[in-house]
């Protein structure tokens, strides 16, 4: 793995039909494990062909959705039915009805599989405490702070277990964990809850690299304002979605990335940025030159050791073919830049 411009997947990738069409029917059965493992293997193969340094967990084939997957494995959450997110898309939003505790590990089956295949260039996405709180109904805890901290304690327990599992295979080697927190900046007056719950989640877990992934925020600046207080090593963020598709290195050509100047002004603890360079909500395959311009613009703001490259978010919204092409161009762009550096 290179030191500069490490390339990484953010999380989810399109599931093959043989898995997606039966996922709920076979969930938890031997067949579920067989097909999830097969899909993971194929996706990792695709990531390798695309040139990714870090393969995540192979596209999150063991998981259907980031909230429900974890909430299903927690005692104290009851589901009354789906809730609409947009158009005719729904998610299962749980109601917290009693003290939370872990029913079964969220991700150890996935990690055990990856370790059995000797993969070490992985990054485990875990849905963060603030998002778990924000996406749940609360009928039990006193307030949102207490609820987020309850989730944080569970995540701390889960991540300690994952670390133990990792250490049994790779003692002394750092484990990468990405805390997915899309809800982070949705309530501007709750940034202290974000900070405290994330810090509680990672408390006492040594020799791990922690990152957070936040996408589709209306204002990253409020996150930058508190990032030095959060015990994380880096922030994997979305930028391409808010950028222009025109090539160029000027501020006006790269409006999506201009905020990084503010980030770098505040970045006294040298946290790295996982730079979203390809938009996961459009089928347009960004040309290599455009991606190079996005990276080079960023390198004009911060040093290369603080920059990693990734898609804005999981590519599950695109077809496998388009997802692959996007990753491939991302890899070509960063390799060309590495040669020039």
């Amino acid at each position, binding site marked *: 793995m290179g030191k500069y411009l490490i390339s990484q997947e953010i999380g989810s990738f399109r599931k093959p039909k043989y898995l997606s069409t039966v996922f709920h029917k076979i969930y938890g059965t031997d067949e579920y494990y067989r097909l999830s493992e097969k899909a993971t293997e194929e996706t990792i193969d695709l990531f390798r062909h695309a040139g990714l340094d870090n393969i995540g967990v192979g596209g999150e084939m063991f998981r259907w959705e980031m909230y429900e997957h974890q909430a299903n494995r927690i005692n104290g959450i009851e*589901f009354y039915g*789906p809730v*609409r*997110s947009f*158009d*005719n898309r729904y998610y299962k939003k749980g109601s917290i009805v009693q003290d939370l505790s872990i029913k079964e590990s969220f991700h150890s089956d996935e990690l055990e599989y990856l370790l059995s295949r000797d993969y070490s260039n992985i990054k485990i996405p875990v849905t963060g405490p603030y998002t778990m709180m924000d996406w749940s109904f609360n009928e039990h805890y006193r307030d949102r702070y207490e609820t987020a901290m309850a989730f944080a304690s569970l995540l701390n327990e889960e991540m300690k277990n994952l670390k133990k599992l990792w250490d049994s295979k790779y003692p002394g080697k750092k484990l990468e964990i990405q805390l997915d927190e899309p809800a982070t900046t*949705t309530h501007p007056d709750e940034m202290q809850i974000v900070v405290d719950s994330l810090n509680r989640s990672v408390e006492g877990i040594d020799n791990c690299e922690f990152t957070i992934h936040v996408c589709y925020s209306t204002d990253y600046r409020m996150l930058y304002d508190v990032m030095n207080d959060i015990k994380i090593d880096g922030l994997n963020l979305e930028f391409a979605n808010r950028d222009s598709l025109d090539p160029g290195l000027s501020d006006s050509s790269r409006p999506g990335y201009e905020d990084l100047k503010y980030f770098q002004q505040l970045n006294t603890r040298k946290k790295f940025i996982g730079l979203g360079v390809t938009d996961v909500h459009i089928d347009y395959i960004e040309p290599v030159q455009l991606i190079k311009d996005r990276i080079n613009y960023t390198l004009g703001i911060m040093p290369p050791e603080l920059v990693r490259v990734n898609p804005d978010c999981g590519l599950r919204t695109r077809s496998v073919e388009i997802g692959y092409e996007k990753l491939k161009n991302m890899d070509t762009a960063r390799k060309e830049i590495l040669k020039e550096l």
Partner: protein
Amino acid sequence: MEVEKLVYGIYPKTNELRLHIGRWEKGRIPDASLNSEIESEKRSFYSTLNENSIEHTDPLFNWYDILRPICLMTDGIDLGPLSRFKETNSFYRMPVINYMGGLTMDPADFSPLNENPPLPLYVPDGNHFNAFLPSPLSFYKMSRTMLSYDKFQAGVEKLYREILGQLKLRKVVIYDPIPYGEKDVLDLSSLSEFQIRLVTTGKLYPGNIKGRLYSIISDYTQENFEISRLNSAVPGVKLIDGYSTKMESVVGINKILDSIDADRVIVSHREYFDFLPRMIADRKIELISGIGE
């Protein structure tokens, strides 16, 4: 005290309807079949509310968000990007308003729309029925436009009069999901021929609302209630939480009502029920039925 009850806005769909819409989105069933399924579910919703004498709007099962069908049937408005609805995990298509033209289709007719189930805008129903329209102020704040608010407001008032006129409706719920700033002014005086129930969000400031309305229904605080009482014929309070699965108690709500000094009051809910699972929304309607009795 006389208590009027109101249920407004997008109501959560049954699982059957959700699946039906999914099939329609994939092109497996035609528009007309979806339309008849939606109408049948609306009729069943109305029947529950009418049995309990609850004022209501259309449950808007064919509205993907509270602005979209209006945008799609109005000349000069395009659909913009998916945008977060307030601080929720729900999203709407942000209107991009180029200019405020007139209606391009009859709101009462069955007509297919792009990126939304087909019209009609509402399926009207009996004496307790109210039209539902987003407040001009929230509509403007939730949109992207170069138009001044005054120009937009003039256009939207004309549009609303056109919609209500064509559908021959006099009663309307106007909904303001975005809280007012101290200097915001929602002027509804030119729509005085309609019986308006205005549902607001958050704190009210004196001067926020112009025009004599039938009711201003606000989050319950003493200050909000005073403003509502001064500016409308029947003050209204939101006492049921549309964001929480926790059930309120009828006894608790009746206790609050007993403490209010008014001859007549409207009781409604905070936020429309589409943010709740259907089962909980149904339970909350059952609870509303028992209020004041």
